């Protein structure tokens, strides 16, 4: 085991706020968010790059934050589930997951919301097979996924209308 590990100074912008921290190189991004920045909306599920509960956006692209080192995210812009709300207005995806019962226990929901957002940012009217592919990296053990599909379709429609 190497000794005298030097901490690394990093700066990240999370949901629009800048944070400067000195971190151990082995610190995972998900633990930076949860334990150091106290943003516990991002969940840890499997810790093996499988379940997707820890999905966040890093520089505009979804990543599994249990499989990114905090030092790799240095200078990065991060969006977590806490950043979806605008003032006290829930994001259309959050409204839709609530209205369509796109969750039961809710553990996977933060990750699914981020994957869904990444999809709808790239495709405003996704087909079922595009939705399937977009949430393939997120595991939900409760819903059987059908209501998640409904939620994403419903949010897509709302977002298309609001764009006019």
């Amino acid at each position, binding site marked *: *085991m*190497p000794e005298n*590990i*030097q901490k*690394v100074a990093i700066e990240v912008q999370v949901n629009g706020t800048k944070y400067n921290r000195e971190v*151990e*190189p*082995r610190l*995972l991004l998900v633990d930076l968010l949860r334990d150091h920045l106290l943003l516990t909306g991002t969940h840890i599920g499997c*810790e*093996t*790059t*499988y379940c*997707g509960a820890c*999905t966040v956006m*890093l520089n505009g*692209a*979804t*990543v*599994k934050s249990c*499989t*990114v*080192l905090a*030092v*790799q995210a240095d200078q990065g812009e991060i969006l977590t589930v806490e950043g979806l709300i605008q003032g006290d207005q829930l994001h259309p995806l959050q409204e839709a997951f609530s209205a369509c019962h796109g969750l039961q226990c809710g553990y996977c929901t933060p990750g699914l919301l981020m*994957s869904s957002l*990444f999809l709808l940012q790239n495709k405003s009217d996704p087909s079922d097979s595009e939705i399937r*592919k*977009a949430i*393939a*990296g*997120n595991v939900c053990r409760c819903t059987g996924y059908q209501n998640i599909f409904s939620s994403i379709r419903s949010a897509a429609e709302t977002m298309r209308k609001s764009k006019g």
Partner: protein
Amino acid sequence: MYPSAFHYHRASSLAEAVSILAELGDDAKVIAGGQSLIPLLKLRLATPEHLIDLGFITELSFVETEQERVSIGALAKHAQIESSSVAKSVPIVGDCSSGIADHQVRNRGTIGGSLAEADPAGDWAPVMLVLDSEITCVSPKGERTLSLTDFIVDAYATDLEEDELVSRVSFAAPSSRSGGAFFAFKRSSQVYASASAAVQMTLEKDGSCRDARIAMGCVGLTTIQALEAANELRGQVLNETVLARAGEAAASEADPQGDMRGSEAYKRFLVGSLVKQAIKAAARRCQGEKVKVSHFYA
């Protein structure tokens, strides 16, 4: 589930990366996207003293075609390749890049990392093999280029020297009468394939096969070239008999091991079927047809 402690080094250029690597030698690991290495670090199957981060190097993220040669930088991410013009002009590249794991992994993982890891279940090796690719490696001593077949030595083993890094992979842009396809069979998107098959072939105007290259993943210690199966196609007009012969030859050339993804016999049968599917899709693409290829998910 936490990596063992390591010293962190961030390289800002390829030259800096190889010079740090030369200095630290065996005690160091390099990290690009980290989608294979971070899980290994967390399981402590890898416990390097030093980690050299290549993620901040910008010079190796290109995907370009110049003078009929496609060149992909080692740090090009799967998602970037998926949305590049090469994924359209060389459809087998699109099949592979869009089918790796899930979007979260494709947004981080790199082609150079995948090839240098030489995992027998990796997706890129069979595809790059049928495209007859070359790998360029850089060390403080300079640059060298070798064929992918010489680069991959064994399971998880490459010809890379201790102080060498992959800088790019390149291949001749296939002609207009050439077409390819890549199919994998996966139990779910996140897991490694149970078997995969890549085919790149060229048809004559009369529809007979001028040339074909076939490679199979996950059915041996390295990617296996199905030379006999390709021989079955050469000079033939494709029909069910020719396809069946090629599929059988491929199945017998495979060298799978039974594991949690299936028995040896099952994988042999599976890879033969995948080879046939890939030949069919590749042949249609040779004739200019747009064919959408999606992996099979159990």
